[in-house]
């Protein structure tokens, strides 16, 4: 025996002892139930490796044979913890253990001087028994690893591989006989055995770097899935369903569920609907199989993300279990986001429903008031004196305002419920603008001049004429309303490059730059000392823009505070190719009751945009 062989043998023995001590220490620290058996197996193996380095004696040989057989048997027990063996197989394993120990002891005590063949046969029986004890579990681990996440898969395969190498070495040793007694062969087999040490160590306590490498491919798939899960899940149920699915996949588990703060299961995977969840999440025998992570659900308390571990999850999923907790935090955030979104959607819906209901209920009383006021005004209920007529006139105006508000609310509710139907027809935008100007004419004071600036050629559009008239009339009435000092209000119609524009320009109060974004929001009104006494619903521009957009257009605004505003309604020209705008000077038309026109076209707009 050369010193090199001795050295390698010592090294191998030391390696196994170190491995066994490391695993035993880990087991002692964490008291992992299942790892105990494996630690015992490795300790027995290390015992064999270590004490076989001592000078041989019959007693030591007997002890070593027993320790060796136990090291294999513990691997079987380890596997039995995950997948229980049938009673018969279990008994057979004990019988095999007994027989092999008896053979081993006989081999040491009685067969020392028997024929080498008999000794080889005894050794063959021993390693066959050992190979059965360890071989069955490693095949099972290898097969089971296929359905598991990357880290668990790698760990199980390393364990299988480690024991497979040991089995191979033992068989080669015994069957090879004297042919393998050369120093080189000994060194090779010892080095192979030594290589098993890191394999088994890595399988039981994989370093972070390795875990990261193993997991890399999986994480690349998980990341978009997480993003999809947390950002794009539109409701709580969908998110919970997907979250459970991924949690189960992440851990390589068999089932999982999410329970809310009250303990109600809101989503589950792989759980029999008939089976009460309490039996899974309860304190029964299976408790150790359920991996739970808390979900922080804000003011509602804590829910649970629970995963029912697969057969090998508790041992090989330690990493994933800590990952599951981090994952649960993300799911909590996602659930809260969805909850807020859902709550807001419900509020929005209630608002729309309220708007709808209230407005229809308001129509009844308004009908009666409006009817009687009109009859009062018409003198049908008797002649009124001067003051009475004046009062009736004010009432009629106010009830009209009310009616306008109701109609706006109904239109807004309709818009949000998607119940708004447009009735597009071919029309001339000039005609629509003309009738809109006529509608608002009564609103204009003597110091307002409403100027209608139309092109000579017709502006062909395909749209809902009544709603478009409504949009323009609303822009005009706003222009009048927000020009308390009077001035010119221009309604200019143009078509260029397939886009028709109706620009309504005033010389009124204008709008501060930072107030512009709220103009087009529902109920968004710009309140300033100058405008607070002016009445409005804050729905007009919201509806106007929505209706314009529904027709393929938009409304934009340009304004200078204190100088005036220009609101521009843009609409697509029908058959845009045909509608090349003529550069001719536009014809101007005055609206009813408005003052003299004559300002160069486009000038007010330029002023407001300055």
């Amino acid at each position, binding site marked *: 025996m050369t010193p090199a062989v001795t050295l390698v043998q010592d090294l191998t023995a030391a390696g196994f002892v170190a491995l066994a001590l490391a695993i035993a220490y880990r087991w002692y620290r964490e008291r992992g139930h299942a790892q105990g058996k494996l630690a015992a197996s490795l300790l027995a193996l290390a015992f064999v490796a270590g004490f076989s380095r001592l000078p041989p004696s019959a007693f030591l040989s007997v002890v070593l044979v027993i320790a060796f057989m136990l090291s294999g048997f513990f691997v079987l027990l380890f596997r039995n913890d995950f997948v229980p063996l049938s009673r018969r197989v279990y008994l057979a394993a004990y019988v095999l253990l007994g027989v092999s120990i008896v053979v081993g002891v006989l081999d040491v005590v009685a067969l020392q001087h028997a024929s080498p063949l008999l000794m080889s046969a005894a050794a063959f029986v021993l390693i066959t028994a050992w190979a059965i004890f360890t071989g069955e579990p490693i095949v099972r681990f290898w097969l089971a690893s296929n359905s598991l996440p990357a880290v668990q898969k790698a760990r199980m395969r390393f364990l299988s591989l480690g024991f497979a190498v040991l089995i191979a070495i033992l068989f080669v040793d015994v069957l090879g006989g004297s042919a393998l007694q050369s120093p080189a062969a000994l060194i090779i087999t010892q080095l192979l055995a030594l290589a098993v040490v890191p394999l088994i160590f890595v399988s039981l306590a994989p370093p972070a770097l390795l875990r990261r490498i193993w997991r890399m491919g999986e994480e690349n798939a998980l990341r978009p899935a997480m993003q999809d899960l947390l950002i794009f899940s539109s409701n709580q149920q969908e998110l919970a369903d997907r979250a459970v699915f991924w949690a189960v996949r992440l851990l390589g588990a068999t089932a999982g569920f999410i329970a809310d703060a009250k303990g109600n299961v809101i989503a589950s995977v792989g759980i029999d609907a008939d089976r009460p969840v309490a039996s899974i999440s309860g304190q029964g025998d299976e408790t150790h199989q359920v991996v739970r992570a808390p979900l922080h659900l804000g003011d509602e308390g804590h829910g649970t993300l629970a995963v029912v571990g697969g057969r090998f999850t508790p041992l090989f999923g330690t990493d994933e279990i800590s990952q599951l907790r981090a994952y649960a935090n993300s799911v909590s955030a996602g659930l809260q986001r969805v909850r807020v979104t859902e709550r807001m959607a419900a509020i929005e819906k209630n608002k729309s429903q309220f708007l709808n209901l209230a407005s229809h209920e308001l129509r009844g009383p308004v*009908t*009666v008031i409006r*009817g009687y006021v009109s009859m009062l005004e018409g003198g049908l209920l008797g002649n009124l004196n001067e003051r009475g007529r004046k009062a009736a006139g004010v009432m009629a105006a106010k009830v009209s305002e009310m009616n*306008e508000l109701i109609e706006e609310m109904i239109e807004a509710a309709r818009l949000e419920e998607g119940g708004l139907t447009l009735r597009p027809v071919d029309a001339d935008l000039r005609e629509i603008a003309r009738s809109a100007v006529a509608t608002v004419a009564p*609103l204009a004071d003597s110091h307002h001049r409403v100027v209608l600036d139309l092109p000579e050629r017709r502006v062909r559009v395909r749209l*809902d004429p009544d709603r478009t008239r*409504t949009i323009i009339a609303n822009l005009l009435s706003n222009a009048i309303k927000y020009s308390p000092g009077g001035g010119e209000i221009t309604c200019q119609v143009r078509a260029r490059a397939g886009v028709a524009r109706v620009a309504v320009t005033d010389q009124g109060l204008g709008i501060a730059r930072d107030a512009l974004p709220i103009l087009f929001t529902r109920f968004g009104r710009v309140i300033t000392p100058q405008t607070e006494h002016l009445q409005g619903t804050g729905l007009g521009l919201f509806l106007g823009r929505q209706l314009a957009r529904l027709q393929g257009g938009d409304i934009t605004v340009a304004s200078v505070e204190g100088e005036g505003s220009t609101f521009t309604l843009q609409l697509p020209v029908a058959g845009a190719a045909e509608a090349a705008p003529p550069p001719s000077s536009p014809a101007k038309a005055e609206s009813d009751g408005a003052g003299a026109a004559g300002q160069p076209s486009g000038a007010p707009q330029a002023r407001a945009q300055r």
Partner: protein
Amino acid sequence: MAAGPALLYWFPDEAGPATAGRSRTPYLGHQVLARRGSAIHVLMIEDDAAIAEMYRLQLEHDGYTVTVATTGELGFSTLSGSTPNIVLLDLLLPDQSGFEVLASLNARLPNHPPVVILSNYGEPSMIDKGRALGAVEYLVKSRVTPAEISGQIPVWVERGRRGRQES
């Protein structure tokens, strides 16, 4: 500022007086027409007493004969007893919907007088349904005044008469 004209900006092509029927005749003209005082008999099926009373006031002032029925069933008994020239029909009635009244009217009295629906609802689907059931007009109550309705009645009666002749 002129307070007179009702400024209904949100006045789409649904159930508004501006587009009553397909004719865009000014109301004033019809009002004058109505004041000639014909012997037109109006049946109003309407459960809101305030509205019914208001309309009765206007219509009787304009020379019409007015009968008010507060339920669909009462409306039917009036129709089988006498023959009104026009029916103003509400949609929300205590015993049945106005659509049901109109449908059974079509079934039981094929030659029934023209029916004008006056409702608080102006949803496009309801207007389409009303028209499909043969109503000569569908109007939203809050958008019209009794005087406007009164002025339009001769037109509707005439339209109903012509419609029956054609069929």
